[in-house]
């Protein structure tokens, strides 16, 4: 019984997995790339393969080196060590204007003195394309991002969402081998951002172009990307499909960075191959988790449980492992979800989330209620670092 093969992947393209094919050649390969600024190491010996047609996300907090990594690929920064290859070709020493990748900037960087159409045509003009070909491609791009009527506007006459689409069209127009998106949706409001995330995904599928997105927004990365690389302090913490990094994080850092998580520091008492049993002062009835990897008995580990995998009971469930008792300290009502902050006897607060599947309930959970939290062994995860 392998938990990882049973993950709820949920992705449309679950069959798309060139990284799992040992014979597949990556489009871009970062090989032990290191970049320092002064005494700070922004990117620390990162090795990473991105495949043709992939939507790849670099996810991490600000200052983790994700933007630097992207700018090195675009040619705006030079690696101190290591090399970057594109389609097998070493990019060292090649200036940005000779690299077949285009970038969509965080600030959009639209040329304010040019119209929308002139902005989109800029890259094509640099390629010395004939005039009618440029015009045809600009029209095609305008239609693609649904800006047909705005060709002769200047950037300062556009809304935020329109600017974002012009920036996208401008970067796609020269048909780059790869599109780099630097926090592309950061400046949009929530509703528009959500719509645009799906649009980006659909666009990438339609064009079959390789996309690399840099973001600090986990939701953005989860929705759009085929694979996510979670970065921490210049290093890769984990690479995997969205469902893998969410449901099978390899460390407390990743578990905590992506979504919310409850962590219990515990001592491993038994590992019988499938089920690992742990002891923690916070769980008097003991803890259990299903885990493929072996964890030696007697070692310290962390049991991770996502809030939505916690069940909240007002009546005491039968005693057994994975049962916690506490008092509701706070309730966060979000409409679709409600988050309960439950204070354990030890004083620590645990999060439990519940989807509000029906409009009315017999007995709502209230502040200061005594509640019991339970979770299934295969909803919990044992982390050793």
């Amino acid at each position, binding site marked *: 019984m392998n938990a990882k093969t049973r993950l709820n992947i949920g992705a449309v393209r679950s069959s798309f997995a060139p990284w799992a094919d040992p014979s597949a050649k990556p489009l871009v390969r970062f090989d032990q790339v290191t970049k320092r600024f002064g005494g700070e190491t922004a990117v620390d010996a990162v090795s990473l393969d991105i495949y043709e047609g992939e939507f790849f996300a670099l996810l991490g907090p600000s200052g983790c080196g994700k933007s630097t990594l992207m700018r090195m690929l675009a040619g705006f920064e030079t690696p101190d060590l290591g090399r970057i290859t594109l389609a097998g070709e070493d990019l060292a020493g090649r200036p940005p204007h000779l690299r077949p990748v285009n970038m969509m900037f965080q600030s959009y960087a639209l040329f304010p*003195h040019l119209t929308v159409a002139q902005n989109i045509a800029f890259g094509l003009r640099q390629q010395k394309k004939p005039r009618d070909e440029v015009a045809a491609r600009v029209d095609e791009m305008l239609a693609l991002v649904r800006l047909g009527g705005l060709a002769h506007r200047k950037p300062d006459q556009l809304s935020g969402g329109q600017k974002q689409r012009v920036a996208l069209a401008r970067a796609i127009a020269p048909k780059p081998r790869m599109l780099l998106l630097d926090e592309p949706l950061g400046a949009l409001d929530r509703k528009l951002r959500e719509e645009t995330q799906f649009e980006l995904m659909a666009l990438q599928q339609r064009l079959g172009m390789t996309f690399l997105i840099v973001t600090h927004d986990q939701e953005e990365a989860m929705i759009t990307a085929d694979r996510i690389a979670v970065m921490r302090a210049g290093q890769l913490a984990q690479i995997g499909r969205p469902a893998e990094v969410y449901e099978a994080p390899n460390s407390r850092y990743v578990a905590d960075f992506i979504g919310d998580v409850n962590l219990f520091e515990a001592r491993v008492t038994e590992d019988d191959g499938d089920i690992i049993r742990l002891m923690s002062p916070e769980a008097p009835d003991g803890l259990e988790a299903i885990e493929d990897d072996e964890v030696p008995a007697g070692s310290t580990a962390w049991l991770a449980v996502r809030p939505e995998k916690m069940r909240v009971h007002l009546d005491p469930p039968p005693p057994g492992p994975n049962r916690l008792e506490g008092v509701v300290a706070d309730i966060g009502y979000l409409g679709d979800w409600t988050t309960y902050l439950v204070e354990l006897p030890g004083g620590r607060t645990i999060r439990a989330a519940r989807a509000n599947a029906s409009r009315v309930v017999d007995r709502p959970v209230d502040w200061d209620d005594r509640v019991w939290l339970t979770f299934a062994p295969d909803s919990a995860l044992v982390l050793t670092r």
Partner: protein
Amino acid sequence: MRRGPSAFNIAAIVLGMGFLYLPIVLLVIYSFNESRLVTVWGGFSTRWYVSLFQNEQLLAAAWVTLRVAFVSATLATILGTLAALGLVRAGRFRGRTLFSSMTYAPLVMPEVILGLSLLLLFVSVGVARGFWTVMIAHTTLTLCYATVVVKARLVSFDEALEEAARDLGAPPWKAFALVTLPNIAPAVAAAWMLAFTLSLDDLVIASFTSGPGATTLPIRIYSAVRLGVSPEINAISTLLIGLVATGVIAVYLLNMRRRTPGA
């Protein structure tokens, strides 16, 4: 609720504007004076403009001044733009703050000292004083003004724009010419105008560095006034004011047009 400006506001504006423009208005009015006496109104006439255009000494001085101003302003704008680019773009380097504040020094340095030091330089190098020495001296004077004006615009210029141009396939020089320059053009034009007017009305530095055959208009006017004010001086001053005002308004309109949507 108050409507419009209060009496105090009006008084302040009248006083301030009067202080600024009364002397100039007076000069313009008296340039159309019939009388030979500068301070006595003898009726409207354009005779001094006519006689001005027969005064070859004054016209020659005006021609020298315009040429000096044009060449030195152009040179100062080019050098100033380059200096501003260096200061804004070069990132952090040793002595950047020192270098940056050094560009401001000529702004506050007394012109007499600048003129004298330039004179010493020209004498020690052994250059004959004339058109070119005045021109070089004025470039020195106006360079820092041009730098400051262009630098102010460059600081607020998003460098990502130039990066975007390079990313889309433009080599660095082309990215500068196609994207950066059009966006800082108003500041460059303003820098040129400022340098031009500064050079136009400089008396102190010009009198240190000019030589025979390169008498500028301010020097000519100054020496003429010492012999007694002629209404011709009023006339040529009025023309100068007109020239400068036209230039300033032109630059202003140029900037306005850029900002107006749909232009």
